[in-house]
């Protein structure tokens, strides 16, 4: 490196010649050594404070309850999978995993079917007030819906079944999907659709054959977020699920509702509910970020 003289190294001198010396032109602001050190330390603190609690949960899930109570075994202990065996072995925990998955999957899929065309139409025809109707679902407190829902659905003897859980979780998924895809369609140029129209497709045909395939990235973003929010939802399932249709968050909650807390088991159960969602998040990071920031930057 020392033998190579880059233009960058020459620049300070070259610049003084070209511009007044008190205003050196810099692409990046001047960063002192102290700032750089500060930045690295700050970033490490940030990463540790966000990850350490999660690591703690993971470690505790691998400890026996005796070790959890022993402060000297904070980091050094003999890992055991006994907690996972207990959790997955008893209480049909695997069936709760299935319930969570099925409810999140079905509610996301059904919300896509009605949500994607709605988002398209609301974006293209600038139906801001109609969009507000759908977004109401996001604003309204869920408790105010639960009593009437419980009453109506129990009269139809649907409480405790999958259908009512899926319906209630669609309520979480649909506004997300509509909100994310509306901002996606807002920024999607009209030209391609118009070209398809010129080629003889109807409006609906152009939507199905041109716009829809082109919006797959947006649909993926919306589906991933809808799935995560449905998977994480607690309140609707707490009231509307039955013994066999409990979703994971409710199953975890029931873990502590009775008897004294089995910390190892509780942490193992918590790891089981968070791991799938974190794996999804790791692989779809870009989509999640674009979904969370949808509509936030264009004002």
């Amino acid at each position, binding site marked *: 490196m020392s033998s190579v003289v880059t233009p960058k190294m020459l620049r300070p001198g070259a610049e003084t010649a070209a511009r007044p010396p008190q205003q050196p032109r810099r692409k*990046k602001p001047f960063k002192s050594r102290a700032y750089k050190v500060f930045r690295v330390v*700050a*970033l490490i603190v*940030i*990463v540790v404070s*966000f990850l350490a*609690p*999660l690591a703690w*949960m993971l470690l505790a899930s691998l400890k026996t309850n005796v070790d959890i*109570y022993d*402060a000297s075994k904070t980091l050094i202990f003999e890992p055991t999978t006994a907690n996972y065996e207990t959790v997955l072995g008893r209480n049909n925990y695997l069936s709760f995993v299935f319930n969570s998955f099925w409810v999140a999957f079905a509610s996301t899929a059904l919300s896509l079917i009605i949500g994607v*065309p*709605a988002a398209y*139409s609301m974006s293209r*025809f600038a139906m801001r007030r109609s969009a507000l*109707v*759908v977004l*109401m*679902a996001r604003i309204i*407190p869920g*408790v*105010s*819906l*639960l*009593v009437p829902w*419980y*009453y*109506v659905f129990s009269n139809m003897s649907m409480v405790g079944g999958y259908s009512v859980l899926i*319906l209630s979780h*669609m*309520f979480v998924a*649909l*506004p997300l999907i509509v909100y994310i895809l509306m901002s996606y369609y807002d920024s999607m140029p009209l030209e391609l659709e118009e070209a398809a129209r010129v080629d003889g497709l109807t*409006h*609906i045909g152009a939507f199905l054959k041109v716009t829809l395939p082109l919006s797959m990235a947006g649909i993926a973003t919306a589906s991933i977020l809808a799935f*995560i929010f449905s998977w*994480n939802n*607690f309140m609707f399932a707490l*009231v509307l699920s039955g013994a066999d249709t409990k979703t994971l*968050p409710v199953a*975890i*909650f029931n873990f502590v509702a009775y008897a004294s807390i089995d*910390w190892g088991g*509780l*942490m193992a*159960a*918590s790891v089981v*509910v*968070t791991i799938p*969602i*974190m794996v*999804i*998040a790791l692989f779809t*990071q870009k989509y*999640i*970020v674009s979904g*969370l920031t949808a509509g*936030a*930057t264009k*004002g």
Partner: protein
Amino acid sequence: MTVASLPQKSAWKAYSDWANDHRKWLFAAPAMAFVAILIIFPLAWTLYLSLTDASGSVRAESEFIGFANYAEVLTDTERFWPAVARTFIFTGAALLVQMVLGMCIALLLWRPFKGEKWVRVAILLPLVATPVAVGMMWRLIFDPNIGFANQALAWFGIPAQPWLSGQDTALATVIFIDIWQWTPMVVIILLAGLTSLSEEPDEAARIDGANAWQRFKFITVPLMMPTIIVAILLRSIDALKTFDLLYATKGRGGGSFHEVETLNVYAYGLSFDYNDYGLSSTVLIIFFLIIIGCMWVLTRRRKDVQK
């Protein structure tokens, strides 16, 4: 062949034309109807229940009692007003710290650096974690006897704290947990805003000799205002309605002394623990008006900023 298929084809074409002409509502109506049916009826019913003394069972006879519930709730200084206060303390404190911290972290991450990817992953994980599991995780960490929090305090010679189980510390602790989980959301939104900023105003100010703080205060923040307000809007909707975390850490009624009982937890308890539907509906209607009020103020502010 052409002749035979003609009438059929024109029928199809008539459908198709009709569908195309009405595609605006054809596309939008199912989603709107779904939400409207699931909202309007329950809201109307909640409004009705708030005017009755319904309790015990939703099927039980109830009497129309006018605004008696509202009078009772609005004069209730034992549960209702403290819950209102807690809702605002929780939302206000969490939101304030999240915005300040979120802005600091977003500024740190703004310029590219080595290992950026890993920091972003670390920030994303709390955000997607299931709130109930997060609550359980912090319950263990904040356990007064076996939790890591008190172990860490002991290293510095600080006496053990009761954290979630303390009457005075519980609310602060759940606020802390909310900050841990949701600051990343603010970071991600603000970072997207920062990245989309044009470099020029900042550059111009630098040439005029503005220091980093001045450029942040007079250039970055005003330009970021629409994004900042969106972040506040999204976070406050969720913070006002926080339920999972509070219920998972403190259970029914927000703990035995209602330490973390916000309006949402209070209304849930009235409905499903006490089956006092009349009162619960009244609390919910007031709560709903509060949320709408907050949203209205924020969206107004957003419009002002955009002008």
